[in-house]
């Protein structure tokens, strides 16, 4: 089947098998390997992308269902000048990642979370990323990273990025 879709701003027309999963189209056909696969039950969220601005798990969408849609992956979130955006910066500055495997999915999910809720509480962030598993960080610093980006987006000084100890 022929489909056309926009990925990270550029248009692609491809001929695909109906059963091709969107995540495989992104990773294999388009070589955008920042979107990862971590499970087979739509649980882990490593494959999260934006489809028409909504965060979705690309392992559970067929490529043909993305026909005519606009997709954003981790490779498409940098600022126009190529610099990293506030969320990416938040993860880096607050040690919001260890192995980095869940990070693209986390950032894509957090992108929509902040779009809908620019100043989320800790509880809202935790529930907001409950479809993304991280095995490394214990989530504390992911919450902190998203709060950092929220503050920066709103022009507010973010909390210190130094680790806080008891």
């Amino acid at each position: 089947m022929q489909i056309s879709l926009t990925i990270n701003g550029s248009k692609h027309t491809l001929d695909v098998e109906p059963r091709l999963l969107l995540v495989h189209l992104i990773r294999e056909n388009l070589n955008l390997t920042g979107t990862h696969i971590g499970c087979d039950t739509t649980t882990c969220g490593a494959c999260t992308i934006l489809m028409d601005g909504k965060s979705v798990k690309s392992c559970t969408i067929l490529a043909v269902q993305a026909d005519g849609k606009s997709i954003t992956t981790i490779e498409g979130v940098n600022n126009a000048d190529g610099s990293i955006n506030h969320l990416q910066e938040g993860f880096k500055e607050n040690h919001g990642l260890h192995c980095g495997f869940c990070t693209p999915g986390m950032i894509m999910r957090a992108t929509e979370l902040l779009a809908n809720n620019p100043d989320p509480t800790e509880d809202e962030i935790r529930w907001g990323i409950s479809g993304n598993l991280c095995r490394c960080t214990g989530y504390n610093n992911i919450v902190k990273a998203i709060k950092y980006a929220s503050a920066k987006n709103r022009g507010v000084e973010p909390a210190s990025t130094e680790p806080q100890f008891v």
Partner: protein
Amino acid sequence: MIPQAFDYHAPGTIPEAIGLLKKYGDAAKIISGGHSLLPMMKFRLATPEHLIDINNIQGLNHIDIRDGEIHIGALVREAEIEHSDILAKYYPIFSDVTKQIADPQVRNRGTVGGNLAHGDAANDHPAVMLALNATIIITGEGGKRAVPIDEFFFGFYQTAIAEDEILTEIQIPLPPARTGSAYHKEERKVGDYATAGVAVKITLNEDGICTAAGIALTNVNATPLRAVRSENALLGKPINDETIALAARYASEDCSPSDDLRGSAEYKKHIVGVLVKRMIQKAKSRI
């Protein structure tokens, strides 16, 4: 995990979709949100030869009020239910239930129609719709037919939808004054299916007497279950410790869960009782 090959159809209209269903019979499956079906296809537990994607059909994604009823299109996403002003105003039970369904990404895709049409007693909307006395609109070759929710769920994964029909809309009566609703499920972790879940809707008159009650249970029966004796325990009576305890006891007695990784049947029955009590109190507090 990769599905078996299939032919993909994306009809633009309901008649077109019904035509495809008639043509392919049980070799076809409808896909809407796809978050129950596609994982099963990836494990090859479902191997349809034809997949009929109804997402391109217009007119199935509305939430509006007509003729004293709330109409919800079958393709409305869980996330839209979660954040709908209309539903929040009349039935806060919807934000209760959607927050506990899977996770935000899944709710961006999953549809309320799919949640019901799947006929899974572990899904959460069936109990809510039972509690709210919803009517399910099913469309087939001969047009639409309205099925009361109590006649919708048949058996294990079975519903009133025939092979060549599509669930197109859900209709819910607007609540009378002094109505409250609430839903909660105990789950092992966020996004899990219910260990047990309870939906409650009650209406009280000025004197505090219960004039309408809807109580239904998730994942404690082969089919979504209305707790009839529990409802009757409240009807015509004030909501007090005594009536609540009776309603809780009846629900606990009348459900028939099974032992699994979530706990023993006895535990689940106990949870049903606890949640019936808590949800009646919560619904009452919302009046």
